[in-house]
């Protein structure tokens, strides 16, 4: 049985302090209710299983360093900002900038994600179940970004390292990015991601994008 923490009318400090205490004593996951007004919730956690019932505010799971955080509704802006370890799962959609500045961990958005998703991703695996907005994967330096649906304009602008896989169409590509044939290793990897998070899609139907150069600014 998951323990419940009702955030109604409480501020970040109160909820965060209580949540950390509950995680510290152990005894299973914690379900957070009425937390959509809180921004930066579950920041910098090293462990714990937290379910946010309904929608979340901005910066959910910022600097996450090991916790498993799930949102049953939609998440606000900058989900899993600068995460290093752990997993953030969003059942609904995310606003602008999910998975920015991450060094590691996994972000899964079952719905659609907004503009500037995965900007400056430095090593996380980021899965988007439906479509993404514009400027997604900007200046990505490492990691895998998997977009099951369609992407907007300027996808992967100044990609430096890492891979972007797209199941649908893109409106346009950014600078320093090229299409590359999907290898068997890619298919296996995608198959694994999709199976793990029960996302229905044919791994062979993806197209793969990689950087043209690792040093587009420096000769």
């Amino acid at each position: 049985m998951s323990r419940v923490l009702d955030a109604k009318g409480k501020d970040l400090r109160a909820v965060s302090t209580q949540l950390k205490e509950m995680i510290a004593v152990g005894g299973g996951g914690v379900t957070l209710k009425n937390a959509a007004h809180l921004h930066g919730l579950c920041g910098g956690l090293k462990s714990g299983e937290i379910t946010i019932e309904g929608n979340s505010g901005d910066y959910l799971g910022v600097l996450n360093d090991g916790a498993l955080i799930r949102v049953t509704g939609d998440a606000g802006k900058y989900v899993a900002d600068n995460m290093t370890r752990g997993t953030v799962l969003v059942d609904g959609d995310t606003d602008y900038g999910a998975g920015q500045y991450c060094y590691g961990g996994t972000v899964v958005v079952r719905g659609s994600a907004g503009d500037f998703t995965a900007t400056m991703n430095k090593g996380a695996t980021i899965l988007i179940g439906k479509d993404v907005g514009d400027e997604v994967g900007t200046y990505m330096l490492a990691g895998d970004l998997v977009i099951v649906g369609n992407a907007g304009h300027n996808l992967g602008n100044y990609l430096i390292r890492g891979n972007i896989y797209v199941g649908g169409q893109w409106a346009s590509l950014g600078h320093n990015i090229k299409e590359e044939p999907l290898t068997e290793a890619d298919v296996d990897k995608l198959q694994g991601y999709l199976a793990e998070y029960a996302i229905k899609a044919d791994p062979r139907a993806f197209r793969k994008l990689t950087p043209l150069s690792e040093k587009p600014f420096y000769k």
Partner: protein
Amino acid sequence: MPVVGAFCVTVHKDACINAQVPGKCATCVEVCPYEVYAIDGNGQVAVQNYNACVGCRICAEFCPENAIRINPAESEHLTRYPWTLGQVEEIHHKALTGEYLLRGFGTMGPLPHFDQILVVPSQLAAEPPKDKYREECEMEVVIGEDTCEKPIRLKYPVIFPAMSFGALSREAKLALAIAAAKMGIAGNTGEGGLVEEEPYYCHGYVDKEETQKKWEPGGYLVVQWSTGRWGVSADFVRAGDAVEIKIGQGAKPGMGGHLLGAKVTEEIAAVRGIPVGSDALSPCRYYDVLSFEDLKKQVAFLRDITNYEKPIWIKLGPSRPYDDVRLAAEAGVDAISLDGIAGGTGASPDLVTQGAGIPTIACIPPAVRALKDLGLHRKVKLFALGGIRNGLDAVKALAMGADGVGFGTAAEIAMGCRACMACHKGNCPYGITSQKPELRARLDPEEAGQRLANFIKATVEEIKILTMLSGHSDIKDLSEEDLRAVDPNTAAITGLKLIGYERRMPWWENEHGN
């Protein structure tokens, strides 16, 4: 800057050992990182490449016979103003490469600066002077006293501002940490992530567990949260005693940090998470701050992640000091660093360093006014940065209303730098801004740390002298009344009283009443 003949390199053959006994000495050949000298067929030292000389003077410093003179050639061109040697060579550089100039160091040339301000000593009309030798002077600056569970107590009104690992060598970073510990002041990671020893060195310990203290009294480390977020994690944020949100810096306001690929070694690449040899280009703004509300949320979650224990700081470049400082204070921070155009840099476009931003002395008065208008002056601590060279500059900044000052470039110089301005090339002859092992080996962290500590010690003595001769025994009692502007221009810019006239310029009286 590859200027043709910017420096005249002269080796006096009468004094040079090698000229007398070929092969006996080749110090200059060894120490010059730009291959200006070579040994010719006869085993003699020859100046083979004048044009590469950047004027760092390390060859002159190390020459055992004092046989070398490095003189700037610019003076010959001054009569050709505005077509000075630098301007001519800049055009050649662009014509040759199609690229604008990038360089390290800060602004060159005459912009309004502290030199046009004087300190007023006390005689009969003010509090009598205090005796530096026999009386105390209060210098402590506390950050986050009412807001944080672990406030920072700087022993002196001095910090080392953010200088990144990458721009600086590991040895230079450690030297700064040691000096911060020895002087009880604060160091700063800069935006390049953490050098492992930095937190406990800053606290004065030689081990991670902080059981063996070597440097008293121990200082603090500020960790920088920046737009590139290099090497940033929850552990990084918690490793500091305060978190500084970098919005901008004086040498390149409106632009992100820029570490040239030449300095991105394996170690730097690993800390920053980028490919070896690639430029580390920080974005010019935060991808995860779209509005002022977002900035407030960042301050709030950084407080949460550091358990409401540690101060949150904002660093600003010189733009619209009144409004910027007001917004920074309203975002809920405990301290603000405001960097003027004179601020140093590891690498920036020359024209931005020279021409974008406003002078430090013009930043401080509006910043102080913004804090006063919010009732937060002396509560939210204001640190003035940018071209502060000594205790005299520092006291002027303090009297204008700042709570403390930062020494960036001056700290580099205290470690040995001779202001050659070629930091971006990664060949720093003193091992300060280089990542090359053979150059880094020239800088011993403990020795450089001692030099830095000596420099700060002398500087705080200067601050003390000037504070006390103005009649105060607490730096917080210094005020604008202790300063005078030397010329109408400076009086107009700063609101200080003009010498002789003994009043402020009329519009300052009318507009701000105080």
